[in-house]
């Protein structure tokens, strides 16, 4: 318990942000204390209700929400919350309940329709905000839950293959190769006919739809994806984030510029330095040494979470914990990866380190569940 709380590093860059974050931390600790005392069975029982509420909030935010570029924030009592964060939690719980109650893991693709629907609904609602990064997390939740529930890897492969088609659809040649691989796979695994035809058709459709869907993306999202491929496409606009982040990290060198002294951050060249690009600040101010310390701490923490998942005796709790492991891991990879240009700029926060109240709260609730599962084992 203490190891987790000790990971919180308050962002000092944005004046006043750390005060609000302290308030959120207090709230989160209270929530942690409360949730950690709730038996997992109660939670399993309440899951459908939580899920329903979160879907309702997602619908509500589409109507009355606010925020920069996207409608993802709900404001009340002076605080802004992101319903998408609650929806992640709810979706994890619901998937865990669905998959954990089964004795045998599903291997047939069509048997997976219920978990798929449970994920697709919030996924689409978040996409509509539009928040590409958070939507991606729902895919991670689905894949990780299925993986941990024992679904064969090939079944998961079949499930996500249309998604890959969607991405590769821009290049006819690459997509063609991919489609041949999928069809060969289907043939070699001797899949059921209906399943195979459905997957193949879905791949075809996704490849064909890629371009029209791309055109429907918000221009800022298109730019972010393009900039991932080449930051110099738009050095003053979307590429600015990435270039400045690399400059900040690179100028940190081995030992860094000193805590609180990073000029890139201090002079506001680094955007979103307290949320999305907080790790760039770590790189600039604490250097490679600081980066490695943080990476080792985070890896160690995730390893502990994974161990809780694998040692748990109850399938519901184990699934929940593994899903949180996967979500945090995805956040870590995407957030840190984008600061060095390995990942597209998506605006996903870094667990325990970034500023962001709703996310901190969800993280602590997740942590509470992990602790509860560990306690119940």
């Amino acid at each position, binding site marked *: 318990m203490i190891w987790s709380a000790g990971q919180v590093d308050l962002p000092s860059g944005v004046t006043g942000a750390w005060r609000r974050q302290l308030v959120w931390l207090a709230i989160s600790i209270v929530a942690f204390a409360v949730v950690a005392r709730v038996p997992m069975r109660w939670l399993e029982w309440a899951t459908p209700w939580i899920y329903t509420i979160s879907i309702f909030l997602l619908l509500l935010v589409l109507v009355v929400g606010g925020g920069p570029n996207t409608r993802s924030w709900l404001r009340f009592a002076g605080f802004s919350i992101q319903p998408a964060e609650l929806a992640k939690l709810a979706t994890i719980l619901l998937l865990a309940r669905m998959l954990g109650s089964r004795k045998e893991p599903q291997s047939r693709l069509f048997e997976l329709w219920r978990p798929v629907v449970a994920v697709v609904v919030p996924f689409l609602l978040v996409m509509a905000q539009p928040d590409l990064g958070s939507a991606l997390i729902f895919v991670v939740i689905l894949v990780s839950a299925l993986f941990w529930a024992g679904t064969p890897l090939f079944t998961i492969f079949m499930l996500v293959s249309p998604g890959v088609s969607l991405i590769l659809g821009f290049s006819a040649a690459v997509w063609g190769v991919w489609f041949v691989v999928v069809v060969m796979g289907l043939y070699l695994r001797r899949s059921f006919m209906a399943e195979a035809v459905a997957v193949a058709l879905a791949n075809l459709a996704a490849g064909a739809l890629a371009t029209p869907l791309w055109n429907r993306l918000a221009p800022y999202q298109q730019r972010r994806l393009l900039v991932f491929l080449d930051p110099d496409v738009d050095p003053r606009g979307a590429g600015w984030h990435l270039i400045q982040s690399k400059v900040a990290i690179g100028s940190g060198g081995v030992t860094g510029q000193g805590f609180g002294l990073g000029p890139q951050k201090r002079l*506001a060249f680094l955007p979103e330095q307290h949320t999305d690009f907080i790790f760039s600040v770590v790189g600039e101010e604490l250097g490679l040494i600081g*980066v490695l310390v943080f990476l080792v701490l985070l890896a160690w923490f995730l390893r502990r979470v994974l161990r809780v998942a694998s040692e748990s005796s109850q399938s519901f709790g184990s699934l929940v914990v593994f899903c949180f492991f996967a979500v945090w891991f995805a956040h870590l990879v995407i957030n840190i990866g984008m600061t060095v240009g390995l990942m597209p700029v998506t605006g996903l926060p870094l667990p325990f380190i970034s500023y962001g109240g709703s996310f901190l709260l969800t993280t602590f609730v997740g942590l509470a569940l992990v602790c509860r599962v560990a306690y119940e084992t």
Partner: protein
Amino acid sequence: MTGGEAARLSRGRRSRAAAAVLFVVIVILAAAFFRLQVLGGGSYELQSRNNRLRPIPIPAARGAIYDRDGELLAESIPGYSLSLLPAPPDTARVTLDRLAPYLSLTPDDVEAILERRRRNPQLPVLVRDDLNFGQVAAVEERRPEFRLVVIETHPRRRYPAGSVVAHVTGYVGEISEAELDSDEFVEYEAGRIVGKQGIERSYESLLAGAAGTRYVEVNARGSIVREFPSDLARAAEPGTELHLTLDLALQQFADSIFPEEHRGAVVALDPRTGEVLLLYSHPSFDPNLFVGGISEVEWAAIRDDPRQPILNRAASALYPPGSTWKLVLATLGIRGGTVGIDTYMPTSCRGALQFGRRAFRCWKPEGHGPLDLSSAIKESCNVFFYQLGLRLGLDPLLSGVDGLGFNQATGVDIPGEISGRFPPSRDWYNEKFGRRGWTEAVVLNLSIGQGETEQTLLRLAQFYSALATGESPVVPHLLQSEALQQVREDWAPNLPEARRRELVSALTRVVNEPGGTAYWHRPREWTLAGKTGTAQNPHGEPHSWFVGFAPANDPRIVIAVIVENGHPDNQTSRAVPLASQVVSRYLGSEGIPPDRALEDQAPIPVPGVSAVEGGVQ
């Protein structure tokens, strides 16, 4: 329970797989940071610097300009500028309103400043850049009231002699768009102060010095955060001091005696070196007005003044040379053997020369009677020179004059000089008037410096310098420099020395013999030799010319004067007394011993009173 065990086992495998993925990914991330921070660290460190450091030029103090005696003509003094740091509009307005009485800002000024602030709200806005020490002190005393105010010093040009030397020094101003695009100013940035006219312009590269650089740290919005001490910073190198050949005292003297209501110019050269001793154009302007940006109203007043004070009438204005031109004819005539100094023309002067159906007049209606060349110069007889021109013939006249360089400029080292104009050949006339549109009669007008010839004052002075010394004409220059002491050998008159001396003695008679056209204003102590001129022109009364040199036998000064419309009748020349006084003043100040016998130094009659004796032409 076996199913559960199986699930648990497979879960262990999955857990190990997940842990492996976690490990690999963390290693990849660490490697990415290693690549960026260790392998690429240097270049990113540099980028980070470029990001936040902005070079700010430190203007160099321009080199001072001195006259030949070390008198100051232009200097750089500390100027004070006052700027307002970025602030909300209301705060800026309140501060400006409070500053107004100390800086003598009008409400219009305040509005203009606020407008500039609106265009660039992130940057400090310049309030005034021409403050004096008193104004700065007044603001500094009330520092607590004016926390947004920044006062900086920068070099500021000052011309102590003001309008007297304005056409020589020129003035400075902010570099223009066109100048920024030109090759000459390739290393200049917008906002730099550059020489615009005169010496300031022609020796810009020497005077400018090298601007220094300081570095400030800025944030992403471009606001200045602080001064950044950097090893890249450079102090400004002040420009080179220039010493001119000009004599400020002489210049001021010319200014004091130039008839105020007339326009015109006075030029004096040292005929041995080409040093310009005096270059005065009237009316003039105050070059100090241009420093720090001239106001629209002041500029309009200067630009739209019908008297054109900006125009340099010594080098950039063309005038018909009038009778001063007769020495060009005499030179060509003697050189070609057409005439000697004592040659008489077939027709003696009866006030006009009949040519074809037209009578070409002499200035003296009753006529000069028979005259040889020397007396024709002395009395400036047109009829003699009409005949000399005819005897020379049109083509030799045109090519001879062209060969003396009268279609070119002197090459003086200030910008804006224009070339003289003289028809180089018959083709010129054919093109202008058509083959049948003109007759050989043009020779007559050209012979007396009228018609299709126009020259600058400086160009005539250059020609007379060759007559004075017997050498090639010198190239006039204002900067003291051996390298600039050049001659135009190709323009040499090539007169045998004896013939030249005869011409000089004729010029001496003009000033020093009763009946000479400049006799009434001869200097009392030195022998001035020269030629008067009365240039008919379309702008009213004739222009009054005088070009000459003194002392006649060992010339130290060539003087050329033009007074526009300065010759209202046949008796009064405004140019001759000016030339005479300037020459006396200069030779006196240089300690040149008088070369005229004392008995000749009789009191000079008051001009105009007994004008019957000798009109001037």
